[in-house]
């Protein structure tokens, strides 16, 4: 936008209106060297711009202040998206029943495990978090086989951004290595897909 540059700032001409007392038409007489950008709808909030903002935010603004407010909200949302992270990877199980550790490049908040062409434990192919006891055990995955109930316990280290899976079951039951590996989603030769959402 450009400011108006006047030779005679504020000067106007008043012309009486015929037949009406004390009524005048006025016109600028400031002799500008630069006309400046007019202050109107076309320069403040053209219809096309308002429509575009409406398409982006869901609300078509009728005032410049509403347009700025809508854009601010949209930018906040984009900021959240920018700080959000997602990763998808797979791994092939090795059959080991020792604690499994997965290192992420960000802090995972929700993690999905999907076993290819098979079921993890109790005939379920996809597991997500179980908020049964979030104060001590963030989430668990349960499996069962003929030996008895057993589950996988998760723990997370923010310092290393590592999510660990440990086997947990009844001390009285003779779980096989295969059962333990299955509980840990590490069955030998099986492919597991992982999708994780989190923040930076």
């Amino acid at each position, binding site marked *: 936008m450009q400011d108006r540059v006047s030779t005679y700032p504020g000067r106007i001409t008043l012309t009486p209106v015929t037949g009406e007392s004390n009524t005048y038409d006025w016109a600028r007489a400031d002799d500008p060297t630069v006309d400046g950008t007019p202050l109107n709808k076309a320069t403040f909030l053209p219809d096309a711009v308002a429509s575009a903002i409406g398409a982006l935010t869901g609300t078509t603004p009728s005032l410049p202040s509403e347009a700025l407010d809508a854009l601010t909200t949209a930018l906040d949302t984009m900021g959240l998206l920018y700080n959000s*992270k*997602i*990763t*998808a*990877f*797979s*791994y*092939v*199980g*090795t*059959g*080991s029943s*020792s604690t*499994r550790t*997965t*290192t*992420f*490049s*960000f802090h995972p908040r929700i993690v999905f495990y999907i076993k290819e062409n*098979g079921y993890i*434990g*109790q*005939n379920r192919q996809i597991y997500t978090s179980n908020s049964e006891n979030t104060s001590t055990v963030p989430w668990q995955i349960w499996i*069962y*086989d*003929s030996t*008895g*109930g*057993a589950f996988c316990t998760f723990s997370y280290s923010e310092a290393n*951004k590592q999510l660990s899976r440990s086997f947990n*079951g*009844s*001390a*009285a*039951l003779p779980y*096989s*290595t*295969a*059962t333990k*590996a*299955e509980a840990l989603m590490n*069955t*030998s*030769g099986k492919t597991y897909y992982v999708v*994780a959402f989190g923040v930076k």
Partner: protein
Amino acid sequence: MKRIIKIESNEFGGHDNMTIYTGDAPEIDGWAEIPEEMILPFSFPFVDIEVEDGIVASMTQREVPPSPPEPEEQPTTDEILDALLGVGE
């Protein structure tokens, strides 16, 4: 897509591994990158590898441990409850 593998194998001769499809690959000590053009042996992740400067230089097939049978039957509700309650421990 990026593939990484733990240099040290486990008790069965298998290597922990990751194939990253989306997102940044984590930097993990003790892991090496598998070159994109390297074809994985059928026995993967039960392989022997040689690593040079953090990159897998060679990968050869090794014997795969026998796969354990899938669980054949589900426990009864009572068996599940007993396990939860610690009955019989």
